[in-house]
């Protein structure tokens, strides 16, 4: 009964705090949005912004305030009321259950409808709907079968390094099978923000100094390095993304397995993430590089490194945090902030003192400075310019302060689940860290290594958070250290989840809930993994069935049509042959062969200006240098962007340029491979004509492109 009581108490506290947080957040945000309504910005070339300067600061401030309040309450409670169940406490169980039901009702009423439930965009609805049931049934059956089989295999294999390695390889193969997209399809728009900068850097331009970057820093630099020095084919980038997906999902599985020691939970966790983060999206996720591992893998890697290195202030971990934070700018900022918040909370609970915390932060800064210096030195050695560090935040600033492509967060959203997981993890951490301290103080009078978890050597014993602890039979330094170490991993994961979720907060489109889902699901499963061991086998099986229904069956049913169509597309691609050969070269050659001939006929110089919706792909085909300092041009959102893009062009003002034919009204406006709804071609042409004080007139056109000459 004690265990049940503790679970009820834990749930009540978590739900209470989360509900209050949601009420305050939504009300304060509404009030601020009303008092300071969004305004248009004259810098923008089109009205695509929805700025809300309060959303992210409020999210951060309110949550940090709540973290401190939880800590204060926890400290006060622990000092005034030792963590023991009072004799009369069980009598209040009915009252507690009643309160729990009310809190659950209030919480669920704030979630609204399931994100994109029963939507089928961009697919057409089939007249015969039985195919959806058939596909979904086969999909669920396959997952259940794989989980069952892999669990059985795991139980019977010997725990040797070699066999474990084979088993993990098998898991990686399963992930590879589920996430493989034959012929590596791409979304022209999303990939242009990677291909464009890679091409520009390979052609000698310096990242940020000469060319603006939408997403990455080290990600783009490393791809440019692979492309230029190792002759990686550009359109095999989706294959790299696929490999990164395998690593990301494998790390998730590995962490859940190591923390929970439960293969069942780890496999259900793995397929929950694949199901929500991959198959719940509308289109093949590998086609959209910015939503997948490019953004989230650095966080996963640092959690994995913390697991391996055991110490939050380990120097290798610090270097990794600094290095990985430069991989993808916004995700990197989240990574650093998540790390700093973990250090802050460690200070609060007394796991590390302020001196050690400051030293850690300074070391992190030093690592960042060293890495940036090394990158700059390498740039100079390879003949590039120094990187203008101020420009690193340019795109981020565009999105946050100007509010480009931002969407308001609805009052009812499944995003609140992220906050529930966050507060649950925090409360669990505070409670276990207090317990840990208490037990260590009793067990280790010498006061050596108060953080305890550093000394963990892989004990298989588990102390249970939901079991009575003081003087418990499972007590002892190793076990307590272990439980605290596990909850440290949980805390770090929760903090990273908290910051990376800002991605949804900015652009609160329902599909972004699936994009950000990997860290919340991992954190939730780590929390379950921390607490699952008190259950007997039957209860575990019931829990597994419940989790499987909640995270696999229910989402599949909600996204039945879209998911079925995605699987059908995947299977069709697999049957078309040459599955490892990229399709992009064929598509491009077929679409732009005439345009390529035209450009080669008229533009003989090594540097060309192609003012076109598909500038990235045409530049790739022509293998010429870009005279404009923007690639892709659809990334030109503001007057500043435009001025920077044409700055170098205006110095040369070439005799001839290639221009999208719709700009000269020589053809209808069309959607290119980029598929962007907005292309500022006319504005670019006007700007260069004004700057060069000339007029370009078309001399020869195809159905997609004109060659224009100075008049």
């Amino acid at each position, binding site marked *: 009964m004690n265990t049940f009581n503790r679970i009820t108490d834990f749930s009540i506290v978590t739900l*209470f705090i989360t*509900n*209050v947080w949601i*009420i*305050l957040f939504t*009300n304060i945000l*509404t*009030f601020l*949005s*009303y*008092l300071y*309504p*969004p*305004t*248009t910005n004259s810098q923008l070339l*089109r*009205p*695509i*912004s*929805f*700025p809300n300067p309060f959303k992210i600061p409020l999210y951060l401030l309110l949550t940090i305030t709540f973290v401190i309040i939880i800590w*204060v*309450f926890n400290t*006060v409670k622990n000092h*005034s009321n030792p963590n023991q169940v009072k004799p009369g406490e069980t009598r209040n169980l009915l009252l507690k259950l009643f309160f729990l039901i*009310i809190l659950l*009702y*209030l919480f669920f*009423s704030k979630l609204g409808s399931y994100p994109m439930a029963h939507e089928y965009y961009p697919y057409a609805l089939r007249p015969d709907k039985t195919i959806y049931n058939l596909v979904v049934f086969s999909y669920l059956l396959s997952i259940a079968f794989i989980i069952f089989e892999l669990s059985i295999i795991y139980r019977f294999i010997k725990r040797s390094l070699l066999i474990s390695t084979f088993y993990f390889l098998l898991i990686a193969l399963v992930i590879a099978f589920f996430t493989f997209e034959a012929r590596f399809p791409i979304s022209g728009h999303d990939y242009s923000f990677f291909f464009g900068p890679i091409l520009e850097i390979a052609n000698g331009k310096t990242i940020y100094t000469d060319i603006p970057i939408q997403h990455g820093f080290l990600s783009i630099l490393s791809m440019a390095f692979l492309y230029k020095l190792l002759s990686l084919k550009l359109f095999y980038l989706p294959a790299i993304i696929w490999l990164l997906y395998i690593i990301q999902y494998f790390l998730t599985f590995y962490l859940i397995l190591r923390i929970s020691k439960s293969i069942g939970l780890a496999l259900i966790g793995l397929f929950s993430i694949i199901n929500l983060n991959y198959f719940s999206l509308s289109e093949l996720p590998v086609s959209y590089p910015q939503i997948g591992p490019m953004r989230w893998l650095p966080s996963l890697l640092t959690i994995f490194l913390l697991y391996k290195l055991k110490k939050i202030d380990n120097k290798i971990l610090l270097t990794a945090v600094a290095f990985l934070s430069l991989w993808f700018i916004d995700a990197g900022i989240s990574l650093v902030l998540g790390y700093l918040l973990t250090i802050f909370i460690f200070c609060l609970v007394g796991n590390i003192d302020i001196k050690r915390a400051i030293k850690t932060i300074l070391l992190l800064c030093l690592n960042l400075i060293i890495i940036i210096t090394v990158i700059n030195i390498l740039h100079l050695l390879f003949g590039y310019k120094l990187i203008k560090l101020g420009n690193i935040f340019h795109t981020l600033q565009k999105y946050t302060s100007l*509010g480009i492509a931002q*969407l*308001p967060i*609805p*009052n009812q959203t499944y995003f609140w689940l992220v906050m529930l997981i966050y507060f649950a993890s925090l409360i669990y951490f505070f409670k276990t860290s207090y317990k840990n301290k208490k037990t260590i103080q009793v067990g280790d009078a010498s006061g050596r290594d108060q953080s305890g978890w550093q000394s963990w050597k892989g004990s298989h014993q588990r102390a249970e958070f939901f079991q009575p602890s003081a003087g418990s039979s499972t007590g002892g330094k190793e076990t307590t250290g272990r439980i605290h170490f596990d909850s440290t991993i949980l805390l770090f994961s929760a903090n990273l989840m908290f910051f990376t979720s800002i991605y949804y907060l900015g652009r609160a489109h329902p599909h972004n809930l699936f994009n950000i889902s990997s860290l919340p699901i991992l954190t939730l499963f780590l929390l379950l993994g921390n607490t699952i061991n008190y259950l007997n086998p039957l209860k575990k099986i019931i829990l597994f069935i419940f989790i499987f229904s909640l995270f696999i069956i229910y989402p599949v049913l909600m996204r039945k049509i879209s998911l079925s169509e995605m699987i059908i597309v995947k299977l069709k691609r697999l049957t078309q042959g040459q599955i490892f050969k990229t399709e992009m070269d064929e598509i491009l050659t077929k679409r732009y062969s005439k345009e390529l001939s035209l450009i080669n006929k008229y533009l003989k110089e090594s540097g060309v200006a192609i003012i076109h919706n598909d500038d990235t792909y045409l530049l790739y085909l022509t293998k010429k240098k870009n005279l404009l300092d923007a690639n892709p041009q659809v990334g030109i959102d503001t007057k500043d962007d435009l001025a920077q893009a044409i700055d170098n062009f205006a110095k040369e003002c070439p005799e001839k340029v290639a221009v999208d034919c719709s700009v000269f009204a020589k053809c209808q406006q069309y959607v290119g491979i980029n598929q962007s709804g907005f292309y500022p071609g006319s504005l670019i042409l006007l700007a260069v004509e004004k700057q060069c004080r000339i007029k370009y007139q078309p001399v020869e056109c195809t159905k997609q492109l004109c060659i224009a000459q100075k008049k």
Partner: protein
Amino acid sequence: MYQTTMYSPKKVAFFTANILVVSLALGSLIIFRPYSFVDNDKAKVICVESGASFDIGPNFIYTLEDKLDSFNDQKARKLCQYNIIRDYGNTYQTPDKVNYQFKPVYTKDSSWGDAILIALTILSLGILLVKLSKYTLNLRNTIFILILGIVLFFLFIKKPANIIFCQRQIAQKVVNFKNSAFKGGVIPIPEDDQHIKSIIKPLYEKCLQGR
């Protein structure tokens, strides 16, 4: 716990803080009480002749009450007649007769459960205060604090709480429309801003009067 003199400044401050906590908790019940309003993102106008259905908010038509006022009624008529929106310059003539049906979709903001949760949160701050202080509360003192808290609420808190409630309501309705209209990005709508400004005051007065 140790005894102090009956009217020590610390003790007075402790009791005052607790009385304030009780009255603020009651005030929060007023501030966060639920109300329903027309969701401008989901409410529709259905054109009588063509049968076409339009979401009102994304088409810059809105209501902060239960029905469309004359300003928005004109917009709805033009939308059904000419298939146009944002004709602020009155380029098109408004059709004489109502040519649409307004289908409001109501949504509820907050709940009594939410209001009670906030009240409990404020009360738990009081409990924290008790735990952090060196004083204890017996039954007599608790009743004394509760009664004074209720008196303080009726004398000083209820009215400002009601004002905040009405401001919260208006803020929610206006933001609901703007979030719905600006989905594709913010554009200047000075005519609508002016109109909203003109209807807010009577709406606010009405709310304060409890209508």
